[in-house]
């Protein structure tokens, strides 16, 4: 069980995670800072105040499962795993380097604590469904959390999984959409609009919670609420800001997939001091 942390402590972890993301992608010279920064509060809330897990025993049978389906956001996940004690903090800057456990996209072969290898968009919700079904078959109480990208939700497989989860009443599964409104080619609304997004999930039979994805107490309340919802899955549509926390990255789609220069790293770290 996670130890009880105050809001201030969680916010402090978020700040450290954001600094890691900037330093990691800066050192790598490539990667996806924008969609990593937008997901920080979601991941920190889950790993430090919601999920039951044990960094000393990553394959603990009853652990809650977490899948970052939007695998390109892995700098955020790696920073969170390191801060939680799963992997070394001092190696974070080896991101994307040959031989690093911090591969360009999450790779289970290098980090056993990862539940799935992701990076090909659209797949994590299905894999999470399999894990949730296994929990139900085995009478286990662990829950499965899957973080999706908004752009990723353009993949048809997401909606295959959405249909399945509602039909099979998979209520031990929570999807969280990091709805930062931008994807590689530009803003979602210009590439392939998702709205009315909440109505789509409702139409597919899900319990929908919409919130500010940078507001930790809202996220905590949402995950608690999700545990009380029976016979249907819950989706948390988390409205976020791409590049959150670094002024020159916020809401600028180009920061989806480029790394900051050394000067930009310095600027960003000042803002995140």
């Amino acid at each position, binding site marked *: 069980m996670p130890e009880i942390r105050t809001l201030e402590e969680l916010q402090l972890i978020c700040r450290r995670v954001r600094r890691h993301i900037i330093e990691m992608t800066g050192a790598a010279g490539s990667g996806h800072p924008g969609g990593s920064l937008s997901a920080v509060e979601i991941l920190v809330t889950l790993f430090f105040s919601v999920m039951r897990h044990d960094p000393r025993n990553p394959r603990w049978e009853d652990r809650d499962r977490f899948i970052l389906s939007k695998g390109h956001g892995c700098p955020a996940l790696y920073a969170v795993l390191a801060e939680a004690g799963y992997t070394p903090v001092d190696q974070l800057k080896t991101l994307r380097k040959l031989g690093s456990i911090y591969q360009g996209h999450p790779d289970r072969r290098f980090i056993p604590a990862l539940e*799935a290898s992701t990076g090909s968009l659209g797949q994590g919700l299905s894999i999470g469904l*399999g894990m949730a079904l*296994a929990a139900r078959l085995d009478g286990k109480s662990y829950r499965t959390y899957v973080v999706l990208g908004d752009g990723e939700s353009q993949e048809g497989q997401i909606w*295959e999984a959405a249909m399945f989860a509602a*039909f099979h009443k998979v209520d031990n599964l929570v999807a969280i959409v990091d709805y930062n409104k931008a994807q590689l080619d530009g803003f979602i609304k210009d590439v392939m609009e998702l709205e009315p997004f909440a109505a789509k999930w409702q139409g597919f039979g899900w319990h929908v919670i919409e919130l500010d994805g940078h507001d930790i107490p809202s996220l905590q309340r949402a995950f608690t609420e999700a545990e009380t919802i029976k016979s249907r899955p819950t989706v948390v549509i988390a409205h976020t800001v791409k590049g959150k926390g670094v002024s020159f990255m916020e809401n600028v789609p180009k920061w989806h997939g480029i790394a900051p220069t050394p000067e930009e790293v310095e600027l960003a770290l000042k803002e995140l001091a």
Partner: protein
Amino acid sequence: MSAHTTRFELRRGAATRAAFGDALLELGKRDPRIVVCDADLSKSTMTHKFAQAFPERFFSCGIAEANMVGIGAGLASSGKIAFVSSFSCFVINKGFEQLRVAVAYPQVKSFKVVGTHAGISIGEDGPSQMAIEDIALMCALPGFVVLNPADEVAMKALVPVAAYHDGPVYIRAGRPPAPVVYTPGQEFHIGGSVELIPGSDVTIIATGLLVAEAIRAAEELESEGISARVIDMYSIKPLDREAVRRAAAETGAIVVAEEHLIDSGLGVRVAQTVAELHPTVMEFVGIRETYAESGPPAALMEKYGLVARNIVEAVRRALARKR
């Protein structure tokens, strides 16, 4: 040498998909870890027998193969032995990206995919339902085992072998009744093959329904004084390289016969092995750079060159080149 002519009275047997359904049911009775996913074809893939017996361990995925493969991967990552089944053309082709990223690359070991209705012998439904690229696709994925049982005996033996293999497996199954090649008790293992008929002039390496055609071809060749070895290469990947090497070294000519596109199936895998271990004359029987059409299965096999006569002709070509 006519021992085998009495040995092989090829009687009509069950379809390999039917044997799969029976084997899966038996496995499910013995092992509670077995779970099954199907995509609205359970009455055709025969997983409905398992579904009726163990409804809580059967997941109806609807017509959504990509999601089904992902769910299978999640189940297999959580202590289950997951059998994921549909027509081969749908689960392999539509699920290929998921088989690659959710199963092969992260090495999800207790994931098993069974594609039925493989090849053109499905008949009337036509090319959209005929898997003729599946061996190429599944052999391309590192770590995947690819099995192609020739008859009901082989299928019933190989389903548990696949289930307990420490790695992902693809099993290819057919729609029409398959002639019975084996007697119960025959042993099969991953990476194995069976020499059904001994021979010294040429070796016919066949898989699936073409094994029975190879036996018929060998019998015809024997009447002409040609001694043809027949090998059932049920394990397409990994391949029994030693059996291939011996065939090349001892008979000096090899014909490969399969119900798959000729440029990307068992034939090219055998040819690569032959090139590496013992270069020799080779000929190939398979589907040549085309999609088939609707028709009765037997007529299609005839029209697209997948019967004993085609194997006999290939053997004659090989022997002419061998001299």
